[in-house]
Structure formats: structure tokens, C-alpha cells
């Protein structure tokens, strides 16, 4: 019992996820020939790179008891917008392109945040609306044309295959490293800064947070700004990875990011969860998807069903685990307090 003494629910969840990921690897390597190879790693990591960054943005929002359904449209819009700019001004500095993507995303997140925090409209309504609005903005702006790989600058096209470190055929690519930096950065922000802890506090008990004198509204706005910024960054990564950007870019990312967050143990009612958990959630989802496709050749619809199932299972187990956990703490406390 002592081993799990210092464990918070989110730590326990991370542990469970690691075990699950290992289980998936073991199970599939026994049914698929030559499953564990460099290609699997490269493929899954390339896809997780995008989803994990997006999911961490989503995590910030979900921690405050909100949700952002517009992230898919933000990804699509920034990808197209930056791609369009780059195909016109090919000599733009790479850093400027990234700043542009993050800036546009932040702006869109800011609109969400202001509507939610200051106009007091429920986030699910606001972001359902902006999801459609941002998407339509993309359609209008693009005039239904496509950003083509041939028009993009060389450095961008080389980015996804740029390796920082390689072990044999196992490549640690620059986008993946970027994602790892984001994960570590936000893990630190959430765990070790007073801003991060207040984010948990607000989601955990908004009333008490107000009494404690926190600027709840500003905190919620900040969460949406960060989510938008990370969605913008994801948009840039999306552009780098795929090159050809159409008006449907990023559709479905909102659901997938929520799935990663929830599977990663972030409480959909706010107050608990971690950046690392969201990352693990993204890994598990992508790994399962990739493996199932290779094993059963399942269709895209089945992938959606799988996502849905994973969300249901993790929310259900969440409430069961939490109850167990609380019972455990209560008992422990009862034992340690002196009897009369």
C-alpha cells in the first residue's frame, strides 16, 4: 500500500496509461508480424507530435471546466493562412511563419475566451459557434483553392523529415522534439507555477477561487489564449507535415483532442489532470489507431467508433477510480487520526 501513498489520481492515471501502452505493444506484436519496427515509431510519433500539442492546449481549457471545440478549425485556418502566405512570400523567415501561426491561433482563442469568460456564454456553445465560423472564414479566405506543396518553400517541406537524432532507422524528428519541449514546458507550468495551480483551483471549486480572490475570468481567458496559441502551432505543424492544405484541414481534430485529454486522465469537470497525461492519451489513441489499421484494415468509421469507445471507457473508469481513491484516503485518514 505504501507504494501508492504519495500518488495523486492523475499520477495513478499516468501509470495506468503507461501500462496500457505497453500492453497494446505486447498484444499487437504477438498478432502482427514485424510489428515493433522503426516505421511504427516514426509514423506514430509524427502523428502524436501534432495531437499532443493540440491536446495540451485543450487541457488548459478543460482544467477550468470548459471545452474548446473550435481547435480543429483553428488548426485548419492557421495551416491554410500560413501556407498561403508562404507560397506568396517564399523568403519569409521560418520563425516569422511560426509566430504568424501562433499569433493567429491566439487571436482566435482570445475571441473564444472573451465570449466565455466575460460574456458568460457556456464554452460548449461559444466554441461550437466559432468552430463553424472559423471554418467558414477558411472557406471564404481560401476561395476553395488548395495550398499546394509545390508552392511552399523548401525548408518547410524538409522540416518533417529533418532528424535531430537518429538511431539506425529510428528517427527523432524536429517536430517530435518540438512537441516534447511543449509537453515538458506545460508540465512545468501546470505543476510548478502559481498560475498553474490556480488553474486547477478554479476548475476544482470556482466559488472558493473567487472567495480566495483569484481573477477567475482572466484565468479562463488565459487558458483559451494558450489553447488557441497551441492550436496555431499545431496548424503550422500540420502545414509542414502535409503540405497540401484544403478547406477540410483539421476537421475532426477537436474530437480527437478532447479524446486524448479525457483518456489522458484530465477530468472533464475540471480541476485535475496533467500535460503529461494528455500526451500519453494522445500516444495511446494514435498507437491503437495505427495498430488496428494494420491488423484489421478497419475503416475510418471504425476509427471514430474506437475514439468514442475510448472516451466512454475512460470517463467511466475515471469516476470508479476516483471513488475508490477517495474511499482509500478516507480510510487512511480514519486510521491515522487518534481514537477517543
Amino acid at each position: 500500500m505504501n507504494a501508492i501513498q504519495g500518488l495523486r489520481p492523475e499520477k495513478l492515471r499516468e501509470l495506468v496509461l503507461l501500462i496500457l501502452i505497453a500492453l497494446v505493444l505486447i498484444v499487437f506484436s504477438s498478432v502482427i508480424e514485424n510489428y515493433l519496427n522503426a516505421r511504427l515509431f516514426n509514423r506514430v510519433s509524427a502523428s502524436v507530435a501534432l495531437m499532443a500539442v493540440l491536446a495540451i492546449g485543450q487541457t488548459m481549457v478543460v482544467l477550468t471546466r470548459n471545452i474548446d471545440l473550435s481547435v480543429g478549425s483553428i488548426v485548419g485556418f492557421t495551416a491554410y493562412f500560413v501556407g498561403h502566405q508562404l507560397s506568396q512570400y517564399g523568403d519569409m523567415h521560418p520563425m516569422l511563419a511560426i509566430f504568424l501561426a501562433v499569433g493567429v491561433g491566439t487571436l482566435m482563442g482570445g475571441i473564444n475566451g472573451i465570449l466565455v469568460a466575460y460574456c458568460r456564454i457556456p464554452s460548449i456553445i461559444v466554441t461550437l459557434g466559432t468552430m463553424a465560423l472559423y471554418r467558414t472564414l477558411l472557406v471564404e479566405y481560401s476561395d476553395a483553392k488548395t495550398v499546394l506543396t509545390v508552392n511552399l518553400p523548401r525548408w518547410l517541406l524538409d522540416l518533417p523529415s529533418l532528424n535531430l537524432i537518429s538511431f539506425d532507422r529510428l528517427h527523432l524528428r524536429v517536430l517530435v522534439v518540438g512537441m516534447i519541449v511543449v509537453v515538458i514546458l506545460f508540465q512545468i507550468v501546470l505543476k510548478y507555477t502559481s498560475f498553474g495551480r490556480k488553474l486547477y483551483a478554479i476548475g476544482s471549486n470556482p466559488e472558493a477561487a473567487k472567495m480566495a480572490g483569484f481573477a477567475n475570468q482572466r484565468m479562463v481567458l488565459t487558458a483559451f489564449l494558450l489553447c488557441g496559441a497551441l492550436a496555431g502551432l499545431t496548424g503550422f505543424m500540420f502545414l509542414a507535415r502535409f503540405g497540401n492544405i484544403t478547406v477540410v484541414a483539421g476537421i475532426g481534430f477537436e474530437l480527437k483532442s478532447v479524446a486524448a485529454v479525457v483518456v489522458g486522465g484530465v477530468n472533464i469537470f475540471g480541476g485535475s489532470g496533467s500535460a503529461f497525461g494528455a500526451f500519453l492519451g494522445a500516444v495511446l489513441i494514435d498507437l491503437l489507431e495505427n495498430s488496428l489499421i494494420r491488423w484489421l484494415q478497419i475503416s475510418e468509421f471504425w476509427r471514430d467508433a474506437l475514439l468514442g469507445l475510448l472516451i466512454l471507457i475512460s470517463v467511466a473508469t475515471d469516476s470508479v477510480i476516483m471513488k475508490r481513491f477517495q474511499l482509500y484516503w478516507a480510510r487512511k485518514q480514519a486510521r491515522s487520526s487518534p481514537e477517543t
Partner: protein
Amino acid sequence: MTQALKEMSLELFSGEIHALVGENGAGKSTLIKILTGIHKPDDGEMMFSGNGVQMNSSQEAQALGIAAIYQEPMVFPDLDVAENIFISHRKRGIWVQWEKMYDDAHKILSDLGMILDVRAPASGLTLASQQAVEIAKAISLNVKVLIMDEPTASLSNHEVEQLFKVARKLKQENVAVLFISHRLDEVFEIADRITVLRDGEHISTRSVEEFSREQLIREMVGREVDQFYATRQKKKLGKRVLSVKKLSKEAAFTGIEFDLHQGEVLGFAGLVGSRRTDVGLALFGIHPNDSGVIELDGQKVSIRSPKAAQNLGIAYMTEDRRKLGLAMPLSITSNITLPSLKRYLGRFGLVRTESEKSTAEEFKNRLHIKTPNLAHEVGKLSGGNQQKVMFSKWLNTQPKVFILDEPTRGIDVGAKAEVHNMIRELADQGMAILCISSDLPEVLAMSDRVLVMREGRQMGILDGPQATQESIMSLAMGELQESA
């Protein structure tokens, strides 16, 4: 609007425990909200350590060193104990130093004599431990005035002792403690001075030695005997309709026993937290009892749902119009016929609106509901008229037993008198009425007998002349064990 507080004066000294007592609605909560900066007073001034202060928010009160803990602690359930203690600290920098925080939290708690795992999430703590966390938080913020608002209401005896130890310790450290409780024993045990409030006014402040219990109760209730008193007369009661024996529900009430006769009004009196409403909810099947016997017309019945209760001829009028009572956006007519809609169904199961309307018309005239027309949205009526609609709605189910929960809450004096007349009329017609009310003069005026509850227990049933404001309050505050 009625005034919640009138020319209230209160002096708190450092190093004293000052008890604040008063019955429901005496103005204690309002006073606390003003002291903690949640509400602003319309008039008057506040001095803190000799300086005049104005507080515009709870943060400003905290900055001065005024903190409050409540019966239901305001913790962050997902954060651990140490974080809960330190989350409001501004001067600890941007970075969280976890180990230092755990050490500091441990030190504060052990100074208080509390043993708690500082790494445990607050959600798993008992209420008493959560309160300890709140107190530790207040101390760490250098509290000078600590307000304890009915902190003992949900604690066990042992936990109350623990809390008192902490309170005495704070007193030694020159903190001023304002202690609010409905338990007289506790007040006399812990307080140095006592202030009595009644109807929003300051009645008296004296040291605890200068108060006798009888005098304290007298000052709490001692208002003029009002006109309703005279109209109460001894009636001959009809046959027994409802009989309840050893009715209990875990974590709510236990050992409730009474008989209710035709034409009788049985008053339910008690202070906040006496669990009277829970008895009503159990009899109406919303939160059914765990054990005990309910007999209706001599037949043993089991009431597991509101539907079952209605079929047996029981109606319950809630104290919470907005949440449980009325469908605010619907019309008066729809609200009145809602529980008995079955009677209005015609061919193909469609509602016969004509007969609905005539029913509504009938009640409008009978209860004097003031409205331009019956299609009017209920949410737009005055409180008194809403109450009448709620009355109509349940009368229309033609109940044998009518449970009224705070029938005159939030309505004006005129409407109040009308409601009182209505209750009397119904009883005269032979209905058995159970009337839960926090308004002592009302209980006395309406009831043939008064059942007094305290913290989920039945303290006694007072009959006719035995029932006075003083005798009810004594029982409600746990003074007498059982009346004759």
C-alpha cells in the same frame, strides 16, 4: 424589501471568543457577509484596530486578517491539503516549492494539534478535517478575526472537542473568534461574551456569566405576541389519518413519531439544520425513509415515490418555489393542473384545455389569485400569488394529508394573512395538515400541536398552552430533554 439588519453594533476584542446567537432570520448570515466583505452595508461604519475601514470584496477582508469558516468548508477538492492551505498566498513567488510547502503545512497543522496527511487530496477528507484545513489556511494568512459560522453543525462530539481546542488556542494567540452556533451548550462552554440578535437588530451583549439560559432564550424570541395568537382555539379533532412511528433516514432524521388527525394542523418547528424538510420529503416519497412505520387511515403504507404519495392522498408544498415548486415559464393553468393532468385527458390522450381552464378559474376565484389572465407566465407573478398557484396545484389533487413547507416564505404581510386563513379553512373542512415553519409566531398561530425537531431528532410535541415561543426555542436549542 425588508431590512436584514438595523443599526447593528458589535465589538470584538482580540483574545476573546464571542458567540452570536439568534433564531432563523435574525440577521446572523447578513452580518457575517458584511464582516467578510461579501456584502456592503448601506450605512454605518466599521473600525478595525482603531481605524475606520471599508471593504469592497472578500479579498480586502482577507488582507485585513478577517477570515471565515463555514459549516460546509470551501476547499478545493482536487488540490491536496498543503495546496489548499497555501493557495491564497501571494508572496510565495511564481514557482511552487512543493517540499517546502509540505513542510510548512505540516508544521501549521501540528501546531494546531491536527494530524493530517498534507499530500492527501482534500476531496477525501472528513468535514472536520476540511475545516481544520480552512483554519490552518486562515492562520497561515495571519488571521486576526476568525468567524466560525455554525462550524459544529455536522461534526461528531469528538470533532467538536478538537475544534474547541483549536479555538481556545487561537484565543491565547490573541485572535478574535466570532462563534455562531445553534447549540446552547456549546455557546456556554466556549464563549466569553454573547451577543443576541433578533429580527435584524442587536438585542444585547453580555459576558457569559451574566446570562442564564432562560434569559438567553427569552431575548432570542422575545417579540410582541401578535394578533394571530388570539384566534387560536381548541378544536375537537377528527379521526386519526396519518400515524408515523420510529421514522428514520440515515444522515437525516431518526425516531420521528406523531399522529395527525382530521382537521388538525401539526406544526413542525426547529432551527436551520433541524431536518424538518427531510421528514416532509420522506413522507412525500422524494427521499424515502429507511425504517419506521407510516400508517394512513390505519393501513400500513410504504411511500417510495412522489407518485405513490399522491395516490395515497398526500400532497407536499415545497419551500423552494423556484427550484422544486413551479414551472416558472409555464402558464398559471398549466401549473395548477400539472400533478393531476390525468384527470384532464380526453380522447387520444389529449389534454382537454377547456376543463383545465375552468379548474384554474375556480382556484383563481377561491384563492384570490391576482392576475390579468390565467395564461400568464407564473414566473412573472408576485411571490404571494406564486404561493397561491402552488397551493391550488396541490389542492387540486384533493389530498387527505397536506404537508406545507414554509408556506409563507418570501411573501408580503397581506398575502401571509391570506395564506393563514386558507390553512385554517382547509383544516376546518377536515384536511389533515402538517405545517413546517421557521416563523415562530406563525407556528403558534396555526398549529393545534407543535412538534419540535433539533438536528434530526424529535425533541417533543407541545400541546395547546404548553406551546410558547420560549418552550419551542428551548427544545429547538436542545435545552429540555422531553416535555411532559
